[in-house]
């Protein structure tokens, strides 16, 4: 069947025929990004090699300081942890969204998206009130006699992970859901007919098919977490300070823009490298699931 196609005389429409078609429509958006994002970022990066003296002094300071390296490491630890927890929690939800009756999935979908419409600061303060030593969760557990001393749920890694996981969940669920929904259920019948066990069907059919969705969700959550600011600042302790907090201090309070630029560039390079890995492994067009 496939062979027959190459014999036919009907020209095959391909995407390569007019590669620049529709490019004009992209220009306004591209121009906006260039003017208000790319240029300012470049200016900040230029400062990192020009201030206070030209050279790589800021980078030497960044990589020579255990403080910055620790904060850098913290940032990746938190982002990785949040990604793992969001994936574990988001997967069943995405699965349910895809297979549930329409009415149920619409309701659940609404709940997932609704959380994104509430102000971030308000949500984070709400978590603060819930998680603190005198908060609702600890009080309930103490009153029920389950614990005698309040659990340390905030001002530490636990608080940041809970708060950020909650905020990031929709960004994991949506691409996962999109990937799962496009799978034709008949494919599992086919796998079973060919003699695959349930485990084989899961590992060799289902997982490869949802992998791009998982990768897209994980990358989105991970990258967004890297730059997070409000939640770590309010729910985290100082020993898990993240890079964005430190950059904000450098820019707004200490006015050390050279070092801030260096820190921002390092973060940007690592993020872009991760993105490149994703494109290589899972392709560009499929990142959206």
């Amino acid at each position, binding site marked *: 069947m496939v062979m027959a196609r190459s014999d036919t005389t009907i020209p095959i429409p391909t995407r390569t025929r007019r590669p620049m078609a529709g490019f004009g429509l992209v220009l306004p958006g591209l121009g906006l990004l260039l003017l208000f994002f790319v240029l300012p970022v470049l200016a900040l990066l230029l400062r990192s090699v020009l201030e206070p003296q030209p050279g790589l002094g800021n980078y030497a300071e960044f990589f020579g*300081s*255990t*403080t910055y390296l*620790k*904060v850098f490491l*913290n940032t990746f630890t938190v982002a990785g942890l949040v990604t793992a927890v969001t994936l574990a929690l988001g997967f069943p939800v995405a699965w349910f969204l895809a297979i549930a009756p329409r009415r149920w999935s619409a309701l659940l979908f609404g709940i997932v998206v609704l959380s994104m419409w509430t102000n971030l600061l308000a949500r984070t*303060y709400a978590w*603060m*009130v819930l998680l*603190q*030593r*005198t*908060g609702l969760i600890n009080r309930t557990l103490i009153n029920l006699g389950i614990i005698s001393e309040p659990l340390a749920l905030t*001002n530490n890694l636990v608080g940041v992970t809970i708060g950020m996981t909650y905020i990031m969940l929709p960004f994991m669920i949506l691409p996962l859901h999109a990937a799962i929904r496009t799978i034709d259920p008949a494919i599992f019948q086919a796998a079973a007919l060919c003699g695959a066990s349930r485990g084989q069907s899961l590992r060799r059919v289902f997982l490869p098919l949802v992998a791009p969705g998982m990768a897209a969700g994980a990358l989105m959550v991970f990258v967004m977490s890297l730059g997070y600011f409000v939640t770590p*600042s*309010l729910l985290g*302790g*100082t*020993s898990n*300070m993240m890079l964005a907090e*430190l950059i904000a*201090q450098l*820019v*707004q*309070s*200490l*006015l*050390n*823009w050279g070092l801030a630029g260096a820190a921002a560039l390092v973060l940007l390079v690592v993020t872009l490298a991760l993105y490149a890995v994703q494109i290589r492994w899972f392709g560009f067009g499929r990142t959206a699931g």
Partner: protein
Amino acid sequence: MKTLKMILAAGAASLCIGLGAAGAQAQSMVFTSWGGTTQDAQKAAWAEPFTAATGVKVQQDGPTDYGKFKAMVESGNVAWDVVDVEYDFAVKAAQDGLVEPVDFSVVKRDEIDPRFVTDHAVGSFYYSFVLGYNPDVLGDKAPKSWADLFDTKSFPGKRTFYKWSAPGVLEIALLADGVAPDKLYPLDLDRAFRKLDTIKGDIVWWGGGAQSQQLLASGEAALGMFWNGRLHALEQSGTKVGVSWEQNLTAADMLVVPKGAPNKDAAMKFLAQATSAKGQADLAAATAYAPVNVKSKDLMDAATVATLPDQHAAGQINLDMAYWAANRDAIAKRWYAWQTQ
């Protein structure tokens, strides 16, 4: 062609009218502060009377952002005329050439408390870091001195401190460790961090005033260091709060005019209005922050005066902003290294 000419002519005419009006009466300037109740009070106490007296409209902007401040001055595209900043930034900004000198032919320097005026900045208001505690959590034990903040045996529970590298916490640690107030500066950083190490696990940090109130009122922190105005606001809202003024540490917000501000003349007049006896008295009455004008107290009622930091001048210690301006980068490096350990 004809239509185009007419449009151009109409445009030019309306432009002339606009300019004429602006020159005659609708002159305006921009005042930037930190938002919230403080800026509302500044607007009512300073901006509205100023507009009534001079006809110059005052637009409110905010919050203050030092990054934006520096970017404006460096690019020569300054949108702010008067900015409320922290004292140590005011000193540093003057050294870096980011602010205009104050015109003391317009502003009455001799009426301002000399602690809160420099060649480049005038006080906006002053306040104190004080020890605050939650009586419901601590019972009948009342902490008094900064040393009590470090005494986890007598006063168990979390204690809360200001999160960022800024004047206050290190001084408190040194005072608690027995350093005499007149021997505080230059700060012995090693000693201060050693003292802070003794309670590091018991500290919860507050990054802003609202958070400090939340931590104390909920009992999450039993005691800590606070801006006096924030504790006053908590009391006003009906929360039970204990305050100790022993060795209260003064700091101030300052008003500065960014270099190249578009309405410099109006800005100087605004500074005169803000630091006047009446302007300072009205602001203090609304906020419980203290007036920097030495004549303001005569204009205030006794009950308001009783809430002010200058009622606790005995043992009061002035944070050394010149020291901080000179050392803030070096201290910040140590501070964040210690915090993230």
